[in-house]
């Protein structure tokens, strides 16, 4: 699919047909043009009412027992330090007040040197980061070099800006390592895209920020960075009802990302209670 795209073939074309010949097989296109995500504007159906954000809010507010509940994700964080970027997420997904899942993968592995985190609407993050993965792959094929983190985050921010105001809910961090070194950008559903050394997104981010701000130093060792990331998520999971279950930690290095661990936050909390080794 990606190669066909690079060469300019329409995806439903037979490889035997030449570029010049008229496309005669229009039936397949008419039947299912919408599965083709090459043209996103055609793919996403416009709703028959004026304000999607307002309508979805109304439906969510329990009109006559109807409740469309989307899965929302919750505490994610990432920070740059001397040896790369550390990314940590929880794994709880809530639908209204119900815990829909305790094993959601909130770090989306776009490719071996790019990671995206998920906070906000699970479907929104998963879908747009998948489209981003496709764009990154095509860039790599066309230009014979890996896409930069700045460019990847810009692609995502611009795509999402087109749907600004329509009710998307997405707070994602794009983490990677390119020729400029480690990269960390936060992209959100209103088209905001900023770069900094440390971010935390989600309902539990306020708790995570306090732990991070207390002991963060750029010159940390890798072991200290893992410990800090883990503590921040565990404490956020402890205090925020919508975060919890498993903490997953990834380390973005020059050679690509590496998954460090995935363990239960509850077990860690009991361990920290007995430990009391945090030095401020």
């Amino acid at each position, binding site marked *: 699919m990606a190669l066909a795209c690079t060469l300019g073939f329409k995806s*439903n074309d037979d490889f035997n047909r030449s570029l010049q010949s008229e496309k005669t097989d229009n039936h*397949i296109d008419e*039947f*299912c043009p*919408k*599965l083709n*995500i090459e043209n996103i504007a055609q*793919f*996403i*159906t*416009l*709703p*028959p*009412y004026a304000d*999607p954000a307002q309508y*979805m809010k109304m*439906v969510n507010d329990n*009109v*006559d*027992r*109807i409740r*469309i*509940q*989307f*899965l929302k994700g919750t505490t994610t964080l990432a920070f740059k330090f001397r040896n790369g970027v550390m990314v940590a997420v929880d794994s709880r*997904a809530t*639908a209204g007040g*119900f815990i*829909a*899942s305790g*094993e*959601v*993968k909130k770090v989306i592995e776009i490719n071996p040197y790019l990671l995206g985190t998920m906070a906000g*609407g*699970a*479907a*929104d993050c*998963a*879908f747009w980061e*998948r489209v981003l993965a496709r764009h990154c792959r095509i860039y790599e094929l066309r230009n014979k070099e890996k896409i930069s983190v700045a460019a990847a985050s810009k692609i995502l921010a611009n795509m999402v800006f087109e749907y600004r105001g*329509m*009710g*998307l809910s997405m707070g994602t961090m794009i983490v990677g390592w390119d020729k400029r070194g480690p990269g960390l950008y936060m992209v959100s559903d209103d088209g905001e895209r900023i770069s900094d050394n440390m971010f935390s997104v989600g309902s539990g981010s306020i708790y995570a920020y306090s732990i991070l701000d207390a002991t963060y130093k750029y010159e940390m060792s890798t072991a200290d960075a893992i410990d800090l990331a883990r503590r921040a998520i565990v404490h956020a999971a402890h205090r925020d009802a919508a975060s919890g279950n498993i903490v997953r930690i990834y380390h973005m290095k020059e050679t690509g990302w590496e998954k460090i661990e995935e363990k239960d936050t509850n077990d860690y909390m009991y361990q920290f209670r007995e430990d009391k080794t945090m030095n401020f």
Partner: protein
Amino acid sequence: MVKQHGWYPYEFQSGTTVAVAGDDYVVVASDTRLTENYSIQSRTHSNVYKMHNNSLLLSTGFLGDVLTLKKTLDGRIKTYEYTHNKPISTPALAQMISIMMYGRRFFPYYTNTIITGLDTDGKGCVYGFDPVGSMTQQLYACEGSAMPLILPILDANILGKNTSKPGQVKRTKEETVKMIKDIYMAACERSVELGDAVVVHTLTKEKGIETDVHPLRKD
């Protein structure tokens, strides 16, 4: 109840579905009661739909969207088979459902769907979706009106969560079917929207789909 004048395209027809994946089988179940606002529309409506590639689609929520989703999916599955010359595998079908449902992000299919089947290695797989297509692969899934009653029982029985013996419990096909029937019988005592009968389907490579209907309380 006083409702504001407006356009309400969605309805909520109840139904509860359960799916459990095993090493070489998948067991799915659905109750057969269709209610709308405390009146029973049908006592013989199952929420399990068989797809052309031998996967089972379980879908509850708004029946209009469920049937349209099923119909559109059927067409897509056939198109896949014609263009790729092989039946679509369940993991690929799950990804297709995910982006199809996201295509209606601003006017969603009001359905809680689960797609189940055997993957290319013959292992059972269960994929759950939210109304806009967020896909997660799971060991077991439950959706519908009695989900808050049934899901904790599945957590305790299958993964041993919050019990004195934590850890996954492996079961055979027959043991899983028995467990699911017991769970439905317990849940229908406490849920008005559950009852009439439970239809249990078992999908295996050798025997295909076997069906079993077990009656429940009709009141």
